[in-house]
């Protein structure tokens, strides 16, 4: 019993920490919508009630770095701004699905054509579902809420910061927590490794089973793309991979609850069932044509272990195992974001207790009694500081350009130069070899995914910097990754002889990869 409960808690904490960066981004975007764009500005940003609303939802959804949890506060703001239900739901599904970093990563993992088809099919589904909603339930928007305008200057920045704290304790947080609870329930219901054979190539029920799992699961865009590519590489069901991509990244328990709460049970159920149906039909349609040729189907996959209970040994000390699992899975940047998220919640709670009437925000957004203060809303402030009030279109273009620029910079930061990656891989390989010599199973299983990750980053980095890997280097990398995978399987089964065999094979392949990279210098 302890194992099931601890396993569920571990998965919930892992999901919270993994989602923390995008949840904080979600609060920031929601605060900007509320305090800078205002209701009419947000409505205009999404194309008003014209044909442009769905394409704009796509575009903004793909540029904003949010996941299916971070998107909820934004959807709340969109709803209050009078945006149509179809557009909100389309945005809610698109935003977590793709971002530039995950798409680039995915391109190195699987057949680019298959990934392109997946992207097109996903966006088609989202458009169809948005149109279907607006057709079935027309005029599903609320009258835009009246919001006082925020004056320009430093107080507006303060208002955005305070609004972020308020977002952190708003109703959207309940939905986020509900989504995380869904992750915990799922892992409590699924014993460790029980999905290893759930997505076989010829398993007709695979997309259906994946629809059930993916609806609950919380997956970051990056994890989704890695899992989909892994399914291609292992010859798993392509229909199941497609279902996982659309439903796993877009839908979760919090999203479902938000939809039901805002649009009532019946319309929500009709829409969700239609979504499932369309995804499954398309999943079954692409299954055969996109099946990769020449891939020997593996009889099992570990791609879905992350949805199951993480504690494999039922007789182990559940608390100790949970602590170790959490320590191994958390990354520093995610922990910093989680700490920031908790800080926003704490400030929000303090503000609720100390300032129940909202005087802080009132002070930040109200106009002063000075005669010139009315002009602060529309005119530049005169004087020594000479604040300039920029027209909205410049701000909008700057934001859009900034998002694109941030995406590009983010890609270059996430994929460091080839030389830096090679050095990191060398360090990891040394640690991995040392641990294989001592048969430290946990450490081997810790290092292998990190090394695989660097391998994928190597390919993307080379591509990004205009010096893509040659066919020779690609094949050397492929061989190295294959050996690493075999080493991982041997370590999972704790087979010493197999580990001995594959560690030398992997090391030999690594040295060959290094030589091939050095030769091109």
């Amino acid at each position, binding site marked *: 019993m302890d194992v099931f409960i601890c396993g569920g808690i571990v998965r919930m904490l892992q999901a919270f920490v993994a989602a923390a960066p995008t949840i904080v981004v979600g609060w920031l975007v929601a605060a900007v919508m509320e305090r800078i764009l205002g209701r009419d500005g947000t409505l205009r940003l999404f194309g008003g009630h014209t044909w442009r609303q769905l394409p704009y939802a796509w575009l903004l959804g793909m540029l904003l770095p949010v996941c299916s949890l971070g998107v909820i506060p934004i959807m709340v703001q969109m709803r209050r701004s009078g945006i149509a239900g179809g557009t909100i739901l389309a945005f809610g599904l698109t935003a977590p699905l793709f971002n530039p970093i995950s798409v680039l990563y995915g391109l190195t993992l699987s057949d680019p054509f298959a990934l392109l088809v997946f992207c097109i099919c996903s966006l088609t589904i989202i458009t169809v579902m948005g149109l279907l909603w607006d057709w079935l339930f027309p005029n599903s928007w609320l009258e835009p809420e009246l919001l006082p305008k925020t004056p320009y200057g430093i107080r507006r920045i303060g208002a955005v910061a305070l609004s972020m704290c308020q977002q952190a*304790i708003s109703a959207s947080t309940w939905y986020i927590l509900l989504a995380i609870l869904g992750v915990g329930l*799922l892992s409590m219901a699924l014993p460790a490794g029980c999905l290893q054979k759930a997505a076989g190539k010829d398993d007709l029920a695979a997309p259906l089973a994946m629809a059930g799992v993916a609806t609950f699961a919380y997956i970051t865009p990056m994890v989704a793309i890695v899992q989909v590519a892994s399914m291609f590489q292992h010859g798993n069901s392509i229909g199941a991979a497609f279902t996982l991509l659309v439903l796993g990244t877009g839908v979760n328990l919090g999203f479902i609850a938000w939809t039901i709460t805002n649009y009532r049970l019946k319309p929500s159920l009709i829409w969700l069932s239609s979504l499932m149906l369309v995804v499954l039909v398309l999943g079954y349609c692409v299954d055969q044509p996109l099946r990769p040729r020449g891939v020997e189907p593996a009889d099992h996959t570990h791609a879905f272990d992350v949805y199951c209970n993480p504690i494999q040994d039922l007789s182990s000390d559940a608390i100790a195992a949970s602590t170790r699992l959490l320590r191994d899975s958390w990354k520093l940047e995610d922990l910093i974001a989680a700490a920031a998220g908790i800080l926003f919640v704490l400030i929000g709670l303090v503000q609720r207790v100390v300032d129940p009437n909202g005087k802080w925000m009132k002070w930040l957004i109200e106009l002063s009694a000075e005669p010139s203060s009315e002009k602060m809303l529309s005119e530049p402030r005169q004087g020594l500081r000479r604040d300039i009030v920029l027209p909205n279109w410049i701000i909008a273009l700057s934001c859009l350009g900034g998002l694109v620029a941030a995406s590009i910079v983010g890609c270059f930061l996430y994929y460091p130069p080839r030389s830096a990656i090679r050095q990191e891989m060398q360090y990891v390989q040394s640690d991995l070899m040392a641990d294989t010599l001592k048969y430290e199973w946990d450490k081997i299983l810790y290092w292998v995914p990190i090394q695989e990750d660097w391998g994928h980053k190597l390919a993307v980095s080379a591509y990004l910097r205009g010096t893509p890997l040659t066919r020779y280097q690609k094949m050397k990398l492929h061989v190295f990754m294959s050996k690493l995978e075999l080493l991982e399987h041997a370590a999972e089964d704790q087979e010493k002889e197999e580990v001995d065999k594959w560690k030398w094979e992997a090391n030999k392949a690594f040295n060959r990869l290094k030589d091939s990279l050095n030769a091109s210098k």
Partner: protein
Amino acid sequence: MNTSVPLMKCVSKRPSAGIFQALGLGMLMIGFCLSFGCNAGKKSESTDAHEEHFPPHWPETIFGAADRLAALESGSAEKGPDSWVSLEQQWVDLFRWLPELAADSELSKIEFDQVDAISLKHGISMEKMLEQGKTLEQMRAEPGISEAIATLQQICRQELQRLQTLEQ
């Protein structure tokens, strides 16, 4: 004016209803995925990684692939007692696997490129012939096949000699 957004008050008259309905749906979905997804074996079951990941006719090395292709070309190859794969399928697979096997050896880039070119040239055409239901005899009668296998064997012979010299 109170501008703060109180918990559970902002979007709905009865937000908790949505949450409970979603939870109810959730429990149904868990039952659904349990019924479909959990009939698989446990992870701790020990399995032979090699058998799982490699088909029975996987040749292990580029030298093995060259020998097997030569045997298939001359008609002296047998299917093998444990192999369920037809000789035609083996023939096509071997052509497709050549680049990976070459990359898993000490062949130089120039030699790798030669092997890769053989695979690219004949792998796809052989695969198409297999899909059309052609026999092994028809496949090996394709122009350029004999020369390709001879080149492959020569590359392998040179590499073996180089390795033997290094050992001595």
